[in-house]
Structure formats: structure tokens, C-alpha cells
């Protein structure tokens, strides 16, 4: 029965192997097979999606915890972000890597939550931030972590936008370009926010020292 489909369509790599990839560095190719799995998930393969959730869940939870300062809220945010990703995957064209795409969804979700929090805060008093839960375990209270703790407290004084840019840059090691793409602002705006966050944090930390 089958076999009469006599089409062999191969894109660039079959004619000049390897060059295809070098020619297109903007493709932001995943080192892993995320791209394949994302396509499959977009076509309704929930098992492929589960592999992606397992693979990227830890980093996304890390990011959300750092942005929100609260593990429970972070878990909710990451859950929402992945469900949202499942819904949007049929339109995912793979212009960026799946991880970059997830960074964007999680960051936006957390930014919305942080912004929604702000009106409740009296701007004339520095909110006493609940020390993030992960900071509260006995080990974290130890003296050797005092600097980390002071940093976590200081981070609460950053605006949501500064916090997002700074966390992506300093704690997740993203390039300024990736952050601009993730947050959806200009490169210059990212640099400005990271600078202002650093200036605020150095001052806060020097007060602590």
C-alpha cells in the first residue's frame, strides 16, 4: 500500500551539511531536542510536553521563586505558565528556543503578579518583606548566609521591572540581548534597569555591612 509517496524533501543540511547551521546563528538552536519536542507538543503530543515540563520545570521554578520571593506563589506561577504554554504551543514557531520562550512566559506571569501586589503597599514605608520561604529554614539563618539574606531583603526594594532584569542577568546569566527579548523591552532599557538595580542593591548592601 504505501511507499508511493516519492518525495524526499530535505532542507539545507543535505546539500551542504553543517553550513546551514553556521549561516543562521540567529536561530538560537537548542543544544537539546527541545525544538522537536515543542513541535510535537504543539501537535497534541502531551508526552513530549511532559518531557519539556520535567526538563525546564526546575529552572522555571527557580526563576519564579527568585522573582516572587515565595515558593508557594512561585509554584502556582510556574504551573500557570506551563498550562499557558501548552495552549500557545500550536502557534509556537520556534523562532526562539523553547527555554527562552518559557523564560518569557514565566517572567511575564511573575511581573503581573508583582505589579498587582504594589498598590497594597504603602510607598512611604519600605515594606518589611517576608523573608522568602527558602530563606527561613534553619540553615539559612546561619551567619554564613547573612549576606544572601540581606540581599534577599534588599531585592524586595526593587521595582518589579528592575527585579526581573536583574535576576535574569545576575542569577540566571542571561545576556542583555536575551533579557530584552524575554521582557520585551529595548536593550538600552535593560541596561538601565540592571544598572539601577545594582546601584540600589550596592547601597542597600553597604548599609548592611
Amino acid at each position: 500500500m504505501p511507499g508511493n509517496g516519492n518525495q524526499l524533501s530535505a532542507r539545507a543540511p543535505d546539500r551542504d551539511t553543517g553550513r546551514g547551521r553556521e549561516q543562521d546563528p540567529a536561530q538560537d538552536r537548542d543544544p537539546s531536542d527541545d525544538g522537536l519536542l515543542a513541535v510535537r507538543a504543539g501537535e497534541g503530543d502531551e508526552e513530549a510536553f511532559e518531557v519539556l515540563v520535567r526538563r525546564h520545570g526546575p529552572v522555571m521554578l527557580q526563576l519564579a521563586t527568585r522573582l516572587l520571593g515565595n515558593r508557594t506563589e512561585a509554584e502556582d506561577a510556574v504551573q500557570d505558565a506551563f498550562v499557558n504554554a501548552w495552549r500557545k504551543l500550536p502557534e509556537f514557531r520556534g523562532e526562539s528556543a523553547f527555554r527562552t520562550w518559557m523564560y518569557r512566559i514565566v517572567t511575564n506571569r511573575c511581573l503581573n503578579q508583582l505589579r498587582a501586589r504594589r498598590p497594597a503597599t504603602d510607598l512611604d514605608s519600605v515594606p518589611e518583606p517576608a523573608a522568602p520561604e527558602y530563606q527561613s529554614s534553619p540553615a539559612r539563618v546561619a551567619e554564613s548566609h547573612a549576606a544572601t539574606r540581606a540581599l534577599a531583603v534588599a531585592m524586595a526594594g526593587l521595582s518589579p521591572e528592575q527585579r526581573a532584569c536583574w535576576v535574569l542577568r545576575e542569577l540566571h546569566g542571561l545576556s542583555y540581548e536575551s533579557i530584552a527579548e524575554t521582557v520585551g523591552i529595548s536593550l538600552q532599557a535593560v541596561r538601565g534597569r540592571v544598572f539601577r538595580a545594582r546601584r540600589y542593591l550596592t547601597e542597600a548592601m553597604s548599609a548592611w555591612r
Partner: protein
Amino acid sequence: MALNAHSGRPGEPGRTPDEPATTPDEESPTDDNALDESSAATERAVPETGTRENGARENGALDARAPEADDEELLPCGRELSAVWEAWEAGESGLDPHLADCPHCSAALADLAALDDAVREARADDPSDATGLAELTGRVMDMVRLELRPGRSLPLGAPEDDAWIVEAAAARAFRAAAESLPSVRAGSCRIAPLDPAVARRGGGAAGGPADRGPVQVRLEVVAGLQWPLPELAESVRARVAEAAEDAIGIDVARIDVLIVDVLDEEDPAGSGEHQEGGHR
């Protein structure tokens, strides 16, 4: 510089009240300061009256709207703080002797280095330990299974039967068949009725006898370099045909194989990780 100098103004951390306002003109315009020309202008006119905070509160967006002028803080030696820190970030602070000689610059660098120490600790301190991750994945997948996208229904078995299979299930079987070949990974797999009229009618639900007929498969694969491409396409096609006939019982009239990438690696990246997901 003390923390309390700007407490209560999270929208513009770091700015001390006695800081002279500078013009934003040297910065290239950004979406941020473009939105804020007005408040920057106000600030230039009355730099120390707190107009700025009011402005920030009014437009509610806080920092994002803080004028970029805020980024230009001159150290007493005339260097810009941002430039000094940028040199440090680029690993070039050693190239400029002034930075080490100048007390203001070296103090600024020491501040940043102290922050960096805390940052490095925070980076190593993974706030998301593995506890709860499995539960999180479980909750996500429970939600996903409420919103499955099974695709169209395709006819199974003989023409007189009334058996159907959803596209997603058939695609899963075909991908697995292709991946039974060494170093082959399958991506997109679309299956549609061969007859364009039927294909156009095709909705989600199982159709009537008129909707039955052979289907066509379009499968994208990635494979290791060791495969001669024509042989690869032929082998994939054979595996898919075999699965269609023996495993599923679906009448496949045409199989298009698209080789979308060739991997240099002996073993395509990620395949090891992939196995744990149970796809092989």
C-alpha cells in the same frame, strides 16, 4: 550612601535627594524615557522638590518610567558610575589605571564586588529544591489532559468498518516507528485524508462512510550524519508503513519524509535525556 536616603521610593531606588538631575540627552532614547520626557523635564526644572516621586506615583508604573537621566551619576572624579561598572562587567576594569588609583572609582568597584559576592552565593543557593517538582509536573499534566488536542479522526480498518483513530494517537505510533531506527528523531507528524474534499470536511469527530478512505502522512525527522539521506528516507517510510499496516491498521497511501536536520553527533543531542521520558 545610605539606604534610608531613598527609602520608601522603590520606584527609583538609588537616587539620593541631593543628587543633581542630569539631562537624558546623551542616552539614546528608549521606550522608557520616551514615555517620560514630561517627567524628566519637570525634574530638570525643579530637581529637589520631590516632583519626581509624585510623578512616579501618578503614572503608577514606577521604575520603568523613571527617566534614564537617573542612570547618569557622576562620581566626584568626573567618571560615570555606569561606565565604571560596565568596565568591571566587561572584565576591563584592570585596563584603566585611573580606576585603581581613584578613591571614588575603587570604592564604587568595591561596592559592586561586595554585591557580587552575595550574588554568587545566591546563585549557588538553589531556592527550588526538587521537593514538589514531581507534584508540580503532575498538576500541570492533569490540567493539560483536560485540554488535549487529539486532532482529526481518521478511519481505521476496512472500508465497511466504523472504527476511527485520532490523529495524535496515530502520529505517536508513527513517530515511535521512525525512532526505532538508530539516531533518528521524529518531530512534526501530520496525517490527513488523501482526498482533499474529505480533508476539507474533516472536523474533530468521526465522520460517516463518505469520510473513509486512505490517508497521507507527512513526517519530519532529524538524523545522525551516518545516514545516506535517500536510504534514511526509505527506511523511515518502511517503518511507518509497517506500523500503519501491522500496529494500527490504517490505510496509508502516501508517506512524505522530510529530513529537517542532520546532526553531526554520533548520537543526536538529547536522546539520552529523551529516553527517560519514555519516547524511545
